């Protein structure tokens, strides 16, 4: 603001008129954009390194500079990571894991969101005695380290008789997604005007009719957030994937771990990086496509005062 004082100083040669003069390179702008760009670089470096490395051949990787762009671009590592990298005797890369991940993620996301949204709706709009106690337990559950729960869940799944099956894993994801998802939906539905809900009751709509016809159509933002969070969370899960499935249904992350850790002599960093990118691709795409909705939904569901 020092510059303003200068201009409107005693020399009334220029009579201030119209918009306040502004400099594109004011100290403020340099500071803001400078900081942002610097931080952006920090955030982008790993992605850059991953991409660049994955496009180099092994000799080039061994030569050394991880930041230098590839002298000769090769897609070999990508092909290898996708279709021929080996774990033990299986040499079909990540391709199998990809479809397994899809088969795990889709039903898990659907189930966990279905349960949590109905649940959040019941908690927000149909409060009943005792619900808060369960909900509090659930929220505290969000803090319990997964490792602590592995064994009890093994027993639980064994007792139900779905250990090792896909449905077992889906159930596990639904269970561990429940606290945060329910919280999200509960907050969102609690912010829906209560009168809307009352109007529907006067109109004779019951529990499910209100949920399906009134609440669902108006909760797109929060569903987007829930889908994004669950998709990335479940897709990225390693621990449950490895503990609660069997090799023919291993998700992609487990296969990534296998490829990265199955060192055959020298570490093939380029293949590892390609595999890493491939594994992260689905959640990344989800983020890039719906990032804007995500922020809006977060504002609607998470940050309610």
């Amino acid at each position: 603001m020092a510059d303003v004082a200068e201009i409107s100083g005693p020399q009334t040669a220029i009579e201030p008129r119209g918009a306040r003069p502004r400099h594109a390179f004011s100290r403020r702008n340099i500071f803001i954009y400078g900081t942002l760009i610097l931080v952006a670089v920090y955030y982008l470096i790993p992605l850059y390194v991953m991409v660049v490395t994955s496009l180099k051949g092994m000799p080039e990787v061994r030569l050394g500079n991880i930041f230098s762009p590839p002298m000769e671009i090769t897609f070999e590592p990508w092909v290898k990571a996708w279709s021929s990298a080996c774990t033990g005797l299986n040499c079909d890369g990540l391709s199998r894991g990809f479809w397994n991940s899809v088969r795990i993620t889709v039903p898990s996301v659907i189930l966990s969101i279905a349960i949590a949204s109905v649940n959040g709706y019941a908690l927000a709009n149909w409060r009943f005695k005792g619900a808060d106690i369960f909900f509090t337990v659930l929220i505290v559950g969000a803090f319990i380290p997964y490792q602590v729960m592995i064994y009890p869940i093994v027993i639980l799944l064994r007792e139900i008789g779905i250990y090792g099956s896909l449905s077992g894993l889906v159930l596990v994801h639904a269970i561990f997604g429940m606290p945060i998802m329910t919280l999200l939906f509960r907050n969102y539905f609690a912010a829906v005007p209560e009168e809307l809900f009352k109007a529907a009751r006067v109109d004779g709509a019951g529990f499910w009719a209100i949920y399906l016809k009134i609440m669902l159509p108006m909760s797109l933002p929060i569903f987007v957030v829930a889908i994004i969070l669950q998709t990335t969370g479940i897709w990225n899960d390693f621990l449950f994937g490895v503990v609660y499935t069997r090799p023919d249904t291993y998700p992609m992350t487990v296969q990534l771990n296998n490829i990265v850790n199955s060192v055959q002599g020298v570490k093939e960093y380029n293949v590892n990086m390609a595999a890493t990118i491939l594994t992260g691709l689905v959640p990344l795409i989800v983020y890039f496509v719906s990032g804007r909705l995500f922020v809006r939904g977060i504002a609607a569901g998470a940050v309610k005062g």
Partner: protein
Amino acid sequence: MTSVSIKDLSLEFGAVSVLKDLNLDVGDGEFLVLLGPSGCGKSTLLNCIAGLLDITDGQIFIKGKNVTWEEPKDRGIGMVFQSYALYPQMSVRGNLTFGLKNAGVPRDEIARRIERAANILQIEPLLDRRPGQLSGGQRQRVAIGRALVRDVDVFLFDEPLSNLDAKLRSELRVEIKRLHQQLANTMIYVTHDQIEALTLADRIAVMKGGLIQQLDEPLTIYNRPRNLFVASFIGSPAMNFIKGEITGTNGSPVFRAGDLTISLAGYETQQSLAPGHCVILGFRPEHITISDVPGPAGRSCEAVVDLDEPMGADSLVWLKVAGKAISVRVDSGRRYQPGEKVFLIFNPAMASLFDVATENRI
């Protein structure tokens, strides 16, 4: 015949008692307004009638049927909400038909009712729009339509106009009044806007702290408020209050507050006005006249103008009388200057007297 009848209704939210042993009978075809300050339990009462809140004790009858534990949809009521509460993702038609479809009303009957409601409320051209594409007034009309198509005996309104601006509010007020004349349904209408209450109601129930303070016709409430609360709550600009005592001379009572004495001859009351009784005297601003010359003795006094607030058609003049601020409503033709000396003339027949201790009308 009573349309809605409430017996000993109590409602508690946890430890907080919001309604206390409330009794209320609403006649068939009556327009009853629940009026009261924020938080007095108006909406709560309405929600109890609608079945949207579980009551703690008491009974509710609608059309002679005990509906205390019925579902809202089975009570024969329609409800209009302050925030409109339209289903945002449905068209206006969808909003109107949602309840009927839920109730399994046949198609042609639905069409008939929609047509009638749309006709009455003049919303035919809006039927295929979404609520988001409507103005505030149109939304409110659709909300009324949603209650209308339910073809019920009792309409409940919860501050249906308070989200609208003043102009629209007065327009829709007239429409609601017309609608009532046309349909002759029972209507229970919650508001905290007294103009609405006064213009719409057959009877007004003034509430405070979960209790009904006075249940009467609008002009009775305006002119003969039963207690200090009703007197001060109703009327804008508010009633002027002066604290003083009765000093009876020769059977004709006189009100005295410091130097100010006002004869109470002509004041109608069942009780006797015993000398020495501490009372509060209330005058509405329009029941005091400003004059340049003193009026009859004992009904007039001198005052100094403090402030003149022109309000278009009339003005509110604030004056100081014996150290007290008094407001008087006058025609806006003449402006008064601060400091100007004038005389006030009181009409005891239009006054209200309240006991200081009980705050009830004497």
